[in-house]
Every structure is written in structure tokens, then in C-alpha cells.
């Protein structure tokens, strides 16, 4: 069909219609454009909501804690009594218990976590076995913390009690062993906590170790270093920032862990350096006291929640920053 000079408009129009109906490629219709704007706006709203959610969380917890903050101020952090009847509240033992249990868990979980990370990245095992061990460690992370608590009550406490009794009897002059283990206490709680932070630490350390450029290790071997000389003097120092970040994030996880501690730490408001004495942590305090709290106690517990929030946020943000810097540093070096 040849277009006549009198109807150029009509031809162009029909060609456009044809393109719209038959061909796959076509310009978006007016409806498409509006739907697109609407949908993009919707996703923007939800992205912004993520930020709003965090701010709302801070405002909600802070707002509910405000009366208690005004009333107790800094003495809340430095006082050691928790007496509901007299209305005196202090969380120093809980802060101590939180930090003490987390440090113990970090020492133990850190040692095992980094060991596993080295064992699974430095060609000790055939790749298939490495994958199996990696999956086993990841399974540890999948088990709910309340199940660890149950296991701790009925397996860990009976298992360590004879050891604890022996240590107290013969080495009781060491402050760490100065009390007897009467059931729940700091040591079983810290042991179970270390199992719970281990997967976090080992997974992030493994990433850090795996991203060390192979040529560094090859150079060390070429100079006659043994496997462990290469690991200790070349690979670990190179990956140290990432491993440090892994430990920070593991520490953050330990600080906020609730159920295993609420079930194992003994819920006792005391300051003690002994590994066997019962203690308490901020998270366990919240878990055990919130369900029965009255209005006043609720505000006090909100204050404790705010403290826990502040501590974990600082540790986690620092940890994430360290990990990010470590990966940026290493990928920059590879170029």
C-alpha cells in the first residue's frame, strides 16, 4: 500500500496502532506511566519506613522510659538494689552480669570460632569435608535459643557440677572459684552463650580469612615457612581486622541474647566475680520481670531496655564498620 499525499496523518496513525497491537515493543501508555510513578512512590515510602521504624522504636522505648530516667537518672546505673516494694531500682549487677557473661562467652567462642575458621580455610581438609563441617557449624546457629536453654538446664549444669565442686574445694582461694555451683550460675550460662556466638564468629572470620590473597601465602611458603608460620605471621595479621570485626559482632550477639541466659544465669541480683555464683543480665531481667510488671516497674524496665539498646547498638555499629573496612582494605589491596 502506498501512502497518498492527502492522508499522511492517517497512515502514521495506523502505523502506530499497528505497533501497539502487534509488535512486542511499544511505548508505555498513559496508564503505565502513572502506575509506574505510583509504584515507585510506594517503594520509596517503604524504604523511608525502614528509617522511620528505627526512629519510632527509639522514641517508643525512650518515651516510655522517660519518667524513670527523670526519677532515677544516673543512680539507676550505679546502684545495686532492686526492690520493687521500696521502689528502689539499680541495674549495676545486671550491667556487670551482661558484660561478664559476654566477655567469657567471647573468650571461649572466639577461640573455637577462629580455630574453626582457620581449620576450614587453610586446606587442612578435603573440600567435601570442609563443606560438611561448615554446615554443622551453621546448624548450631539454626537451633532456637530456648532449646539451648533447656539443654543447658538438663545437660550442661549436671555435667559441670562435679568439676565445679572439685575446683571450689581445692582452688577455692582463687576468686573465680570462690562460691559453689548450686544450679544455675554464670559458668553454665557463659558456656551455652559461647556455643551460640560461635557460628557468628566463625562465619565472619572465615570470610575474612578466605579473602586473604593467595599470593601472600604462596610467598611465605616460597620462603620456606611452615604451614603455621605462614598462618600466624602472614595470614592472621592480614585478616586481623576482619576477625576483630567478627569478634565485635559476636560480642554484640552475646550482649543481647536472652532466653538461654534467663534460663541458666540464676536471676540473682548480685555482683560477683565467681564463675559459679548466680547472676543476672539486662536481657534476662527484662524477660523475667516484664510479664508481671506494674506501671512504675514497666517504666524502669523500659529504662533498662534503653540501656541494653544503647550498648548493643554501639557494639554492633562499630563491629559492622570494622568488617566493612577490612573487606574494603583487602579488595583494594588485590588490585
Amino acid at each position, binding site marked *: 500500500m502506498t501512502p497518498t499525499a492527502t492522508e499522511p496523518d492517517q497512515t502514521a496513525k495506523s502505523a502506530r496502532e499497528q505497533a501497539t497491537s502487534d509488535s512486542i515493543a511499544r511505548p508505555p501508555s498513559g496508564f503505565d506511566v502513572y502506575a509506574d510513578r505510583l509504584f515507585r512512590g510506594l517503594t520509596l515510602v517503604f524504604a523511608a519506613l525502614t528509617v522511620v521504624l528505627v526512629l519510632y522504636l527509639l522514641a517508643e*522505648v525512650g518515651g516510655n522510659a522517660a519518667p524513670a530516667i527523670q526519677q532515677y537518672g544516673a543512680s539507676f546505673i550505679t546502684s545495686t538494689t532492686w526492690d520493687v516494694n521500696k521502689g528502689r531500682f539499680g541495674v549495676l549487677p545486671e550491667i556487670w552480669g551482661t558484660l561478664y557473661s559476654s566477655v567469657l562467652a567471647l573468650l571461649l567462642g572466639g577461640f573455637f570460632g577462629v580455630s574453626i575458621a582457620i581449620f576450614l580455610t587453610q586446606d587442612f581438609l578435603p573440600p567435601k569435608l570442609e563443606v560438611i563441617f561448615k554446615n554443622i557449624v551453621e546448624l548450631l546457629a539454626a537451633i532456637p535459643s530456648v*532449646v539451648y536453654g533447656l539443654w543447658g538446664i538438663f545437660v550442661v549444669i549436671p555435667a559441670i557440677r562435679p568439676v565445679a565442686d572439685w575446683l571450689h574445694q581445692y582452688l577455692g582461694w582463687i576468686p573465680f572459684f570462690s562460691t559453689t555451683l548450686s544450679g544455675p550460675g554464670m559458668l553454665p550460662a557463659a558456656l551455652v552463650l559461647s556455643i551460640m556466638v560461635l557460628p557468628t564468629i566463625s562465619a565472619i572470620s572465615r570470610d575474612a580469612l578466605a579473602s586473604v590473597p593467595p599470593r601472600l601465602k604462596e610467598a611465605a611458603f616460597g620462603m620456606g615457612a611452615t604451614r603455621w608460620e605462614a598462618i600466624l605471621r602472614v595470614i592472621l595479621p592480614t585478616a586481623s581486622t576482619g576477625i576483630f570485626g567478627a569478634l565485635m559482632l559476636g560480642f554484640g550477639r552475646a550482649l543481647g541474647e536472652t532466653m538461654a541466659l534467663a534460663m541458666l544465669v540464676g536471676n540473682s541480683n548480685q555482683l560477683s566475680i565467681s564463675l559459679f555464683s548466680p547472676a543476672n543480665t539486662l536481657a534476662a531481667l527484662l524477660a523475667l520481670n516484664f510479664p508481671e510488671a506494674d506501671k512504675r516497674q514497666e517504666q524502669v524496665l523500659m529504662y533498662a531496655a534503653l540501656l*541494653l539498646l544503647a550498648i548493643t547498638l554501639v557494639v554492633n555499629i562499630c563491629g559492622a564498620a570494622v568488617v566493612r573496612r577490612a573487606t574494603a582494605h583487602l579488595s583494594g589491596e588485590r588490585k
Partner: protein
Amino acid sequence: MRATHSTAAVDGINPPRLERSYREGRTFLSTLLSVVIGAATVIACVPLFSVLIMLIWRGGAKLSWQLFVELPPTAFEDGGGFGNAIVGTLVMVAIAALISVPFGILAALFLAEFGPDSKIAAAARFCAKTLTGLPSILAGVFAYAAVVLLTGTYSAPAGGVALALLMVPTVLLTAEEAMKMVPARMKEAAVGMGCTPSQVVWRIVLPTALPGILTGVMLAVARASGETAPLLFTALFSNYWLVQDGHLALMEPTASLAVLIFNFSGMPFENQIEMAWAAALVLVLLVLVINIAGQLLSRRRL
């Protein structure tokens, strides 16, 4: 390196030995450390096997059909089950998923596709990463302040909100990663055909990234099903079914497997303790099945 340096000094007198000898300190040390580290790895696997064996031994012994259809026993009662707790856990996780999955995916779309370099995206990414480290008990405190105080009652939706807060960052960050893996040339081809950015997302990005997104959702669901702390004072616990006398008691305290384990573990009654173990076995099986399903989904992507 210092070690090489000192060997070189000795070389002047003796020719270097090339065989490994365990009498040499550094070879011995290297082997010793290898043994130590292998032992540490094996020891770290012991707790997992101990937990699994105890669950199968103590929980498996109690397992019966009765557990899934009956209500929890009172103090001195024998028998009973935790059917209402299983229903409660599933309902609350479903509520949490209904909130967090659309929330996470829509926010991830903005972060990955529509404004990856904008300031809002950077702020949202930072907030999501911060939320991943949020202690689960604080999600409970937040839901208590935001929902329980507002509605005046402990309820399943309050528990669902607390769990959703823990699920959002996982869903969001894994979905963003999955969307970034979609090849740019596929999206460019769609744009070339005249698609609007939203059409590109619906026809190309979402279908292609779906396995990755689902993996993230499954991981989040698995984690949420095992959480106890956020439910302690949002959903509380209940000895009754969610549906009572034909009407749905959604705005009342709701039972969950995790809280049942916590409550029963501290009781001095043998029946309740056995039931806690059986509930723990069911809960771990539930979590593991969801986890494994998620892993299989991600494997299919490759």
C-alpha cells in the same frame, strides 16, 4: 621474615636439610597446632550432637499423636499436649510474614532498583543493618509499647509485630542482594522494548530474583519460629485454643511452642519437663525443615 633469616645464618656451616624432621622445633610446633585446631573443631561439634541426641532421646520418647491435638496439662495432670501452641506459633509467624515480606521486598526494590545511590537508600540500608543486630527481647519491648499498651491486651498480632520487626532486616537485605544479581542486560533489554521501570521490576527483576528472595524469606521465617523472647510479654501464653466456641480469639493471649518450652522447663513436674523436650524436638524439626527448604531454593538458582 625473621625465621628465614636465622636459617640462612646456619646455612653457612651446615648444608640445609630438605626433609621434614619432627625433631626440628618448627615442624613439631606446626603439627602440634594442626592437631590442636582439629581437636577444637571436633569439640565445637559436640554440643550440636549432644543437643540433637537429647532431643531425639528425651523428646522422641514422649512423641505421640496426642501431643498435637490436646491442650497443655495443668500442674498435677498427666498426659495432655501442645496443639494450641503449634497453632499459635504458625499463626503468629504467618502474621509476621504478612507484615514483613511485602515491607522488606518493597523497600528492597527501592534500595536495589529505583534509588540505589539516594540518601534515603543509604539511610534505610544502615537502619536495616542496625536492626539485624537488635536483641530479640527489645523487639518484644517495642511491640509491647507499640501494640500491647495501645490495644490494652496481650495478643497474637502483638507477637506477630514483634517477630515481623526481627524478620524485616533479613528479608530486606537478602532481597536486595538477590535483585542486584539480576543481569543488567536483561533489564536494559526490557527498557529497550518500552517498559517502564515498574514493568521491568514486575516482569524481569522479581521473577529472576525470586529464588533468592524466597531463600531470605525462609531464613527469616525459620528464625522467627524459634524466637521466644519477643513473645514473652506480647503474646504471653494461653492454655486454650485460638478458636474458642466457634469464634476466633485473636485479641487474647496466645500460646506458642517456644514460650511453652520456657514455661515448662522451669516446672518441678516430670510430665511438663518431658513435654518441654517433646515441644523442643517439634520446634527444632520445624525450624530445620524451613531452613533446608530455603537452602534448596538457593541451590536451584545456581
